[in-house]
């Protein structure tokens, strides 16, 4: 236990970075994912094809490979950013494809009568999506999005291998100095992740209760 208390500042710094990575990429991948989902359902074939291709490729590529491409590939193409930015790009690109599929299945669960009703009172396609279909689709997809946000939080650990000092990689740094206490430090960091992921799940459950009352 003493080793945990002694290294607490380092671990907390790591978790601060994990939370930053998570927060920034969660916002970006939600926006991207919803945009992609809309692109998959609007009657414009070019957008359907593009979004479908994106989702198919990214969902079938390992996240570590996407980190590899972004963090090691972009610099040689002349795009020089911080490791944090690379990590945010990789995480958002990866997780957006999953959010897209969650939202799209939410759209599929909106009863057909809703869009028919919207059309019958003369709404345009944009108005129908904006005011009728999407609010219900998003409410439907909150549980799935919750799972993907937890997956995103777990995926931030990969950033540690690509130059960002976040919670998981602090295990390695602390273990270098204290090779005998790896397991104790592991349990400490694991406890941190459990707190974060339980809070994400609890927050989204609250949000779900709120939106499901509205609809």
């Amino acid at each position: 236990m003493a080793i945990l208390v002694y290294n607490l500042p380092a671990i907390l710094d790591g978790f601060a970075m994990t939370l930053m990575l998570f927060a920034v990429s969660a916002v970006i991948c939600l926006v991207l994912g919803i945009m992609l989902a809309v692109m998959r359902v609007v009657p414009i074939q070019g957008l359907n094809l593009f979004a479908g291709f994106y989702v198919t490729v990214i969902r079938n590529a390992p996240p570590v490979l996407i980190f590899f491409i972004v963090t090691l590939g972009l610099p040689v193409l002349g795009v020089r950013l911080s490791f944090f930015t690379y990590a945010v790009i990789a995480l958002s690109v990866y997780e957006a494809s999953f959010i897209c599929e969650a939202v799209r299945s939410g759209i599929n669960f909106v009863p057909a009568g809703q869009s028919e009703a919207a059309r019958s009172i003369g709404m345009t396609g944009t108005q129908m999506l904006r005011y009728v279909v999407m609010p219900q689709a998003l409410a439907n997809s909150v549980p799935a999005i919750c799972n993907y946000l937890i997956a995103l939080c777990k995926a931030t650990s990969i950033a540690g291998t690509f130059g960002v000092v976040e919670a998981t990689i602090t295990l390695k740094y602390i273990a270098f100095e204290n090779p005998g206490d790896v397991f104790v430090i592991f349990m400490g960091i694991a406890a941190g992740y459990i707190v974060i992921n339980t809070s994400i799940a609890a927050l989204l459950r609250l949000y779900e209760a709120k939106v499901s009352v509205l609809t």
Partner: protein
Amino acid sequence: MSDITRLFDEPSPRARRKLALWNGVGSTIALLIALYVGWVFAQSPQMRGELWVHFAEPGVWWTIGRGLVATIRAAVLCIVLSILFGAALGIARLSANPLLRIGVGIWIEFFRAIPSLLIILMLFLAYSRVFGEVGSAVEAVMPGFVNLLLAPGQWNTLGPLVLAVVVQHSAIIAEVFRGGILAVPRGQSEAGYSIGMTRGALLRIVLIPQAVRGMLPALVSECVRSLKATSLGYAIGYLDLLRTGQIIASAYHNIIPMALILLVMYVSLCLPLSWLASWLEYRTSPARAIRKTSTSATALTAKVSEGAA
């Protein structure tokens, strides 16, 4: 396609012209962006032909092939072991013994909430030597071809990778399993008990065979996830496809060509499995069942009306 017809009306001639305009404008913009990106790529030294020339050397492909074998080896081990452990955990979570049930529940929730990479690093940092020793002990006992199938001399990295992925994915599969068994109608287990089956026989003969059919899509997508998760071995230096690719890329400074090849290889490994999963899902989906029963119902009505006539 079904989404489009459901969400939107068949477009009117005017709407069709508008859509065609949008398609045209969009494609032009996309083409311009693609040209610009292509131009940027062409300017960078990464797209010079000589960086691709290395991929004409058989030695490079030999190395990539070894990485591919290592990835598939890790994936197969992960998939088989995590399905076995997952099934065991899932059944244990349904056990009548509350202590076992709660203990397994805590185990599952713990491993579902933490990143695999954390477990991999912990096992590697603390126990990689143990894994290596166990590996050499096993290698000494096993005949040569088994050693070739397993990882010769790589147990110190393969062990932590596989164990971590198995611990994490078996926790997820356990939930799939439990859900699948609970989804079998109650009457089935009541019928089993009523003819005097024990709990084990009931699970083995009645519940699991029926549950597996419903779980199949989820299990296959779990295979895709295991395959993707093996690339986490990159962090501890397991010589899988990704790590081999990185080594080649740093030797020849051809990271972009290498990354593209890796992307194509990983996607073509995972995509067939993903398609299999969605096909299985479609096959077991209620929509198809309804369509099937309704067609057979139509056929039946046709027959009946024929008979009446």
